[in-house]
């Protein structure tokens, strides 16, 4: 069946764009450039063709967007209110999950211990699970430090969901970096550990001694 529908060969820009258009339309998920290349071996200037196609859709109801190393057609965000599409209600993320999501996105690759350190509380079992289930975070390999802890980062679906071309397009990422706030260095705990054995709590009657208090 595939043999008898012949696509004109050669450096025909129009044909190339048609094929890219069809392939990207046919997929609900963003299609990786490698996958496009494999389908379009005759197209040498894929980047240029994609850019030309993107231009073609600028200002339309549907846009060609880049998500990491993949491309997809998506409805234009400004039309949201006009579409009146019936969408299944998505589960609302907890405040903790949103915060952990942001820490993973802005500090990746980041370990569980670093997340806990930044938030000052232990990570609930379910919090990371929710983000994993949504397909937004993924393990990024182990850090070569004692204990070889697993690090976490964002998955491709994160970019797609939040409409980001790549991680450097995260809102405010440059400002945060310039302000030194994307530093995973431990802040207070390091000091706390140092001073643990010399502190006593001036809380009146039942003074609490530190150090042997909670296991955490």
């Amino acid at each position, binding site marked *: 069946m595939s043999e008898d529908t012949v696509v004109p060969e050669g450096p025909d820009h129009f044909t190339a764009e048609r094929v890219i258009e069809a*392939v990207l*339309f*046919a*997929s*609900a*998920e963003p*299609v990786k450039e490698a*996958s496009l290349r494999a389908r379009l071996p005759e197209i040498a200037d894929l980047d240029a063709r994609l850019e030309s196609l993107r231009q073609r859709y600028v200002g339309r109801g549907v846009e060609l967007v880049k998500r990491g190393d993949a491309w*997809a*057609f*998506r*409805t*234009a*965000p400004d039309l*949201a209110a006009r*579409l009146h*599409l019936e*969408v299944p209600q*998505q589960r609302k993320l907890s*405040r*903790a999950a*949103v*915060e952990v*999501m*942001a*820490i993973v*996105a*802005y500090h990746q690759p980041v370990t569980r211990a670093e997340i806990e350190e*930044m*938030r*000052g*509380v232990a990570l609930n079992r379910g919090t990371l699970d929710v983000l994993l289930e949504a397909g937004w975070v993924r393990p990024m390999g182990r850090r070569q430090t004692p204990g070889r802890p697993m690090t976490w980062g964002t998955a491709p679906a994160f970019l*797609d*969901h*939040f*409409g*980001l071309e790549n991680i450097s397009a995260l*809102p*405010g990422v440059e400002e*945060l970096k310039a*302000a030194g*706030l994307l530093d995973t260095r431990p*802040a*207070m705990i390091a*000091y*706390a550990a*140092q*001073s643990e054995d*010399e*502190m*006593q*709590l*001036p*809380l*009146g009657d039942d*003074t*609490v001694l*530190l150090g042997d*208090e*909670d296991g955490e």
Partner: protein
Amino acid sequence: MVEPGAGTTGTDDWDAEIAPTPLLDVLLLDIDGFEGPIDVLLALSRDQKVDLRQISILQLAEQYLRFVHEARRRNLELAADYLVMAAWLAYLKSRLLLPVAPDAEEPSGADMAAALAFQLERLDAMRKAGEALMKRPRLGEQVFPRGAPEGLRDLTRPIYDTRLFDLIGAYGAFLGRKTETRLEIREAKLYSVDDALARMSYLIGAAADWQKLEAFLPPGLTDGLYRRSAVGATFVAALELTRQGKIQLRQDGGAFSPIRLRKAIP
């Protein structure tokens, strides 16, 4: 060193009734709504209504200690990490108020305050980043993928490298297996201990001096199994002849060093 207990600095008389601020009341009412002491600190620091970079850590520490004090006065259940933070802040407060000891090894109060300020600022930044992310046009809510995607399929087309030779060879093996039902155990070509004894007894007469054991191996040792059996049998034969007192054996230099033998001198 810091003297623990009430009234050390003269500013925090814990027995005096301090009228709780409206914020403190809110915090205490919704204590379960907070994610640990840092979260409470962030809420308190926002109450200072200044940029987080200009926040007074001393004032913050006092607010927090008042919060914990008030919680305990009202018999509210506080998790241990709230008390740990209270202890740390009390210590920080004392470090901030006391003159810095010149030979102090531990970080100064200012260092500690800066670390706390950094942690609060960083967490606040992450919280705001999270909110900014959630406000973006999100897939499935404001932005939509194709509703009826035809789908892309990546098919793997297997290419088998089986040749005609493999095919008819397999058939030959199958036929062979099918027709041959009697199990025939064929003689294995091995060098026996008897062979080795005979050879060694014959050769030892010609060898007056110490000879290596391998000099007594039969010729033509190419096949691995045959060679292995010959080495084993020759060694056993050497042990047997030694036991019989016909030859002497020696091995200088420990394991795997050459074994030598010669005719026993009566």
